[in-house]
């Protein structure tokens, strides 16, 4: 199969919501000696981009996005281990987490998916994460982008605390912080000293591509 046809197959498996198809296409790409980075960026990511656009336009909804994300990860699970370590040193890094006090993580999981589709290696801190865990972990690992999420208003303060701890530990100037979740707003992002707030995970990744992340490796 030609490289173009394989890339189309990878993208199609994601946008057609076919996890087994994505895994099979990724295995086929490796068998055909395709560069795994190219298979990800010009195959899986293109498919996820299409899904992201359809979600933004309300032509797809969350059930379809979750299945598409599963398809992408099925492909990534095959392709990522095949990338030579030397090729990973310039990769963009991001962290995502739901702040302490909140366990609603669907939004965070979508952000993780879109960041991965945007070419980031993402560390998922999970849900109900203490401000210090994110602030210190990201400083230690020199994470470039930190995405904080919450569904609930009482836990918004823990977003502020996380950003405050990043200032305290001296890493705030070296990273980009974005926030999201229904109770947050652009004004709240300014108030707590985050760089950006977005309603949509896809738009957040587009914003990041237009605003080069700070610091990192």
């Amino acid at each position: 199969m030609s490289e173009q046809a394989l890339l189309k197959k990878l993208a199609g498996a994601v946008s057609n919501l076919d996890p087994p198809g994505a895994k099979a296409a990724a295995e086929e790409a490796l068998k055909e000696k395709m560069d795994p980075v190219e298979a990800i960026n010009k195959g899986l990511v293109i498919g996820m981009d299409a899904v992201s656009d359809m979600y933004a336009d309300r032509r797809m909804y969350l059930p379809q996005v979750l299945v598409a994300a599963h398809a992408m990860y099925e492909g990534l699970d095959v392709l990522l281990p095949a990338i030579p370590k030397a090729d990973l040193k310039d990769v963009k890094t991001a962290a995502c987490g739901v702040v302490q006090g909140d366990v609603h993580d669907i939004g965070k999981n979508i952000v993780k998916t879109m960041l991965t589709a945007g070419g980031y290696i993402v560390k998922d801190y999970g849900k109900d994460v203490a401000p210090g865990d994110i602030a210190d972990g990201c400083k230690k690992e020199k994470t470039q982008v930190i995405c904080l999420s919450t569904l609930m208003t009482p836990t918004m303060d823990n977003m502020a605390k996380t950003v405050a701890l990043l200032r305290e530990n001296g890493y705030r100037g070296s990273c980009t912080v974005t926030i999201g979740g229904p109770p947050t707003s652009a004004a709240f992002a300014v108030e707590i000293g985050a760089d950006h707030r977005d309603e949509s995970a896809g738009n957040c990744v587009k914003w990041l591509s237009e605003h080069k992340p700070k610091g990192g490796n």
Partner: protein
Amino acid sequence: MAMSCRDRVLAAMHCEPLDRPPAAICTTCDTIDMMDCCGAPWPEAHSDPEKMARLGCAQADYFGLESVRAGFCLTEEAERIGCKMRMGNKTSSPMILSHPFNYDPQHKKFDDPSKLAEAMPLEDFVKGGRVKTAIDAMEIMHRTHGENYVVFGGNTGPFTLCGHLLNAESLIYSVWTDIEMAKSWVAAVAPYCHAFGQALLDNGADVVQMSEPSASTDILSPDEFKVMSKPYVKKAMALKNGMTILHICGDTRGIIPYMYDTGVTGISVEEKVDSYEAVKIANHRGTLVGNVGCAFPLFKGTPQDVEAAAKKSADAGFNLISAGCGVPIGTPASNILALVHAVKTWKPPAKG
């Protein structure tokens, strides 16, 4: 003679013409200031019927709102059926930590819905836990405030409760991959929602307000709402001897007619739907409740912002002026009072 708060809210629920709508928050409204005023804070007010009733009445007793309402979270039913919980503290709400059933659409491993009745027989459901707390609170609130105020009781919608029990992300995923399995689970959950709603009414509530946030259009398409939520809300809200309100978060423009199709007395919508557009889409099919924004202006705005939003909802023709969703507990007292003041001093816009 001035109209009582109760008569005004009942008239509004029946869409009768009024000189002004009531300021009546049918979604949760139990701020820290309210907890302090009445001496019934979280987390005790989630589990103690007397404290739940006291906090539920604080909105009328101290803030001039024209109805009373309890409980204060969407986890009572899930905990009763078997979810492990963290009950939180004065400023953090109860949270579900684990789900009692296995439901893994990625690996096609599903518990059968019959396990639900094994875990919690329907006939026992309303007899214990915080479900019973809320039912008992209705009796107290009816006794202490029912003569002058409409008593709202809250319950959780079947798709949302099902997500609590199975893992919401897995349930939502399966709407695409295993829709019949998803439907069979939501169908099995709906009778529990019905039993709770009926018990709330039977014990003193005048209105049951169901919240179904997981069926928001941020999650399900309108077509998916029609098959995954609407029929089960309809069964769960087919209640006797009382009225019903269905609340769904987000931009509900695409599902407002379907929300009314469930047969509820009224619906509650957020500020993500423009007030005028909501009234137009609702097309007088039933009571319309809302839609003053919770994060903004109630939580983060000024009293002037709140007054403007409340007046807009009233100008547009909402029957009850309420928060668009659950009121954040850190909402300043001045903003609640601004909502009440704006509604109580509202005059219909001049025609012309």
